């Protein structure tokens, strides 16, 4: 009998719990209850932590000893901590390992271990008689690696040697191949000899490797060198402390950081791996972390409800676009006509996608260049939503409606397949919207979804009709890689020699005033050629405690930790 009653009780509680959670979204009244509890969970070493928190609104990571610990809710676990050979993004490495440059929140490259970025004006770039370029970098002096050894030009030349060596597997190795020699005339000067001018030169060397640690190893050995892969040696504001596999990476303050004794302001940063988006959202809601990354646009509403936290919608260089390919049989039949491509673009309502589907959290893109970039060309042709014009162009191209309303030409139905990547739900949603919009003008769109790695394999062959894709562009505006006839990342088969000429010329224009008109031309030609339809620039929603100051989110591929040395945790009054 007793067991009977117990079972009924348990059952009742379960049902009540489920009902309660079903009502969870209307939650703001519950916030006060939630803030009490985190004061208990967040006290690492002492139970008097509740007395430490100044305001109930934000969980403060200042321990009773006065240590400032920043807890970051990060995404899936990374593979290795070598910023150059890792296949993942390098947020964690950036706190420990520095390079000649880094990209900031304004989409600019700024010098870090270099005193300034060389240009023609400051004499850092000199053209030689044989047409080659000598580029001189003056390094910061008095910089020490975390083990006390001095950082010198030897390290820079060693890094270059490693990257260009056979089999280094550095993601952008081909760009470094433009440098044919590296000289270190004195410990604080590096001279690169470039085969040809390379405008994106400031994007390179975001990380320097320590020559005194890795200098005696072969390239293959460095790739598998566990000591560096698991605990990299750097010059940065934080030093590696601990990597608990599957759980977290902990970095601690570098007491001899070269920017001065007042930096870094934080004592520790802990990156906890939480691969699932929903779990990370819940973790932020329960205030277990001060900073949360990797959220999606549709979680912004929820993130905004967290008391004591701000949401930063960082405009990123993650460029979402609708692309077609003429490498597939069907693609070649349908898309090899510029009028048809333009017609398709006119039939797609991009503002509706950016503002309605993505709830206004993204930035509409008219060209592959971010509107915030000084290279953005606002006069390039824009495909405004005009289904009537679309129908007209399709008719001009010889497509007439068939019996089922779908366009036909010489026995071919205008039907193509969008290849979707499982897990990229925002892009699948866009594909569905495009499917509906194109139906209006008589085009049939089918969908095929493949698992991530399988999708990648097919995508690389170019044997697909269309896809909603995304690129994480660097802060440099060069898109040659994407659209050149022999572009390494051009999987579509589209080729315009005139475009190639202008892109390559702009890649060799080291001076802004020379490069800007060329880039304008590139964007204008791209728009006319209609190889690719820009949709929007993704935002990176980042949730962070109001106690975190000096956080300046950056949407570049080098991430938002670029200025972590000046971050601080300040109690909110």
């Amino acid at each position, binding site marked *: 009998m007793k*067991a009977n009653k117990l079972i009924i009780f348990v059952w009742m509680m379960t049902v009540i719990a489920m009902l309660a959670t079903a009502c969870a979204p209307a939650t703001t009244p519950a916030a006060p209850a939630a803030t009490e509890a985190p004061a208990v969970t967040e006290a690492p070493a002492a139970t008097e932590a509740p007395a430490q928190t100044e305001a109930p609104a934000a969980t403060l990571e200042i321990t009773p000893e006065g240590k400032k610990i920043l807890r970051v809710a990060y995404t899936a676990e990374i593979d290795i901590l070598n910023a150059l050979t890792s296949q993942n993004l390098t947020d964690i490495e950036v706190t420990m390992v520095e390079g000649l440059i880094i990209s900031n929140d304004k989409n600019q490259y700024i010098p870090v271990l270099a005193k300034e970025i060389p240009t023609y004006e400051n004499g850092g770039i000199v053209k030689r008689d044989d047409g080659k370029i000598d580029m001189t970098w003056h390094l910061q002096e008095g910089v020490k690696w975390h083990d006390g050894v001095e950082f010198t030009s030897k390290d820079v030349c060693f890094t270059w040697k490693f990257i260009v060596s056979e089999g280094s597997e550095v993601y952008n190795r081909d760009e470094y191949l433009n440098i044919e020699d590296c000289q270190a005339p004195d410990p604080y000067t590096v001279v690169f000899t470039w085969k040809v001018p390379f405008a994106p030169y400031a994007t390179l060397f975001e990380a320097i490797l320590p020559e005194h640690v890795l200098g005696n190893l072969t390239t293959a050995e460095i790739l598998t060198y566990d000591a560096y892969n698991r605990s990299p040696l750097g010059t940065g504001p934080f030093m590696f402390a601990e990597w608990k596999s599957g759980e977290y990476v902990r970095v601690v303050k570098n007491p001899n950081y070269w920017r001065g004794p007042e930096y870094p302001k934080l004592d520790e940063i802990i990156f906890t791996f939480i691969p699932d988006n929903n779990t990370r959202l819940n973790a932020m809601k329960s205030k277990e972390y001060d900073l949360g990354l990797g959220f999606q646009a549709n979680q912004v509403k929820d993130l905004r409800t967290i008391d004591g936290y701000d949401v930063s919608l960082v405009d990123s260089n993650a460029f979402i676009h609708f692309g077609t390919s003429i490498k597939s049989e069907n693609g070649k039949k349908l898309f090899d006509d510029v009028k048809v491509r333009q017609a398709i673009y006119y039939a797609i309502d991009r503002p509706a996608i950016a503002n309605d589907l993505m709830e206004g959290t993204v930035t509409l893109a008219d060209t592959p260049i971010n509107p915030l970039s000084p290279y953005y060309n606002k006069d390039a042709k824009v495909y405004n939503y005009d289904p009537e014009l679309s129908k007209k162009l399709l008719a001009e191209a010889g497509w007439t409606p068939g019996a089922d309303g779908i366009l036909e030409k010489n026995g071919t139905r205008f039907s193509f397949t969008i290849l979707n990547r499982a897990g990229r739900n925002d892009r699948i949603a866009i594909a569905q919207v495009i499917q509906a919009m194109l139906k209006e003008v008589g085009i049939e769109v089918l969908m095929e979804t493949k698992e991530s790695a399988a999708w*990648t394999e097919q995508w690389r062959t170019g044997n697909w009709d269309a896809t909603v894709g*995304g690129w994480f562009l660097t802060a440099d505006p060069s898109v040659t890689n994407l659209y050149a006839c022999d572009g390494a990342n051009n999987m579509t088969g589209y080729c315009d020699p005139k475009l190639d000429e202008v892109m390559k010329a702009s890649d060799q224009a080291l001076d802004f005033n020379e490069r800007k008109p060329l880039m304008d031309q590139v964007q204008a030609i791209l728009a006319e050629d209609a190889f690719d339809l820009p949709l929007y620039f993704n935002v990176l929603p980042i949730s962070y405690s109001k106690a975190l100051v000096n956080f300046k989110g950056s949407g570049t591929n080098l991430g938002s930790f670029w200025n972590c040395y000046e971050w601080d945790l300040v109690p909110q009054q």
Partner: protein
Amino acid sequence: MENSMTLYISRRLLQMIPLMIGISIIMFALIQAVPGGPEAMFLESGRFIDPTIIESYRHRLGLDQPLYIQYFKWLAAAVTGDFGLSFSTSRPVSEMILERLPATLELMLMAFIFAAIIAIPLGIFSAVRQYSLLDYLTTTLSFLGIAMPVFWFGLMLQLLFSVKLGWFPTSGRITVGDASLVDQVRHLVLPGIVLSLLYIAGWSRYMRASLLSVLRKDFMLTARAKGATERYVIWVHGVKNALIPVVSIMALDLAGLFSGAVITETVFAWPGIGRLFIQSVYSRDYPLVMGILMMGSFMVVFFNLVADVVYAWLDPRISYS
């Protein structure tokens, strides 16, 4: 009796060798048959990638060699206990698996023990009071438990107990800087409940069915006729006999102890082997996938043997000769 049992066990152990080799061939073929390779991870971040590094990457990992050569290289190393280096981290696969074992065992054991404590009595009471309210409730809950999407249930628990009530942390194994016992237990509760629900649902059903069939047996009538109390009859004669198939099933489930639970570990960011496995499949990290699969298969085969032995030991009617 002793002798034939030892013989039986030895025979089974010997059979394991060709069995494991056969399994490894099938596993290897299956993972290679799946489209896409480890180079896909380079393109995951969306950055521009130099395509020549993909070729050198594949060459370094030996992926440009014919499949059978890749397999025999793997096998030759595997029989010595060397499962190779992971493609993504370049660390020894055995090291990666071993460092995740404690967390996995912790979670799975907790769920197992908790589930056993609840499921067995639940099943017994259900059977003894068949068609009572308790029985219907338990049956409904069991079906709910089996049908419940783990993912959803885990997130619901998180929303209620972590976000709204703040009783337990949302995820992870410990709070960094505080690895006290209390902290560890608090982290175990939610994923433990989610996991054990699955086992409770299944095991209580087995217990109920098994006991029901035993209760109908003639010897139960005999025991009652001999004058034993109802409680004695049910517990000593009924449950003891009914436990036999249930224990065997639990022994089989024990194999899962080492494989972890993929979905639960993902939802609660638990650093277990389940999550490691799904990550390795996603990134086509073949050595790691093979390592985990072989370990899992070995456990299944081994615990099958354990289940058979336990069954024979518990039930005197069975003999392996």
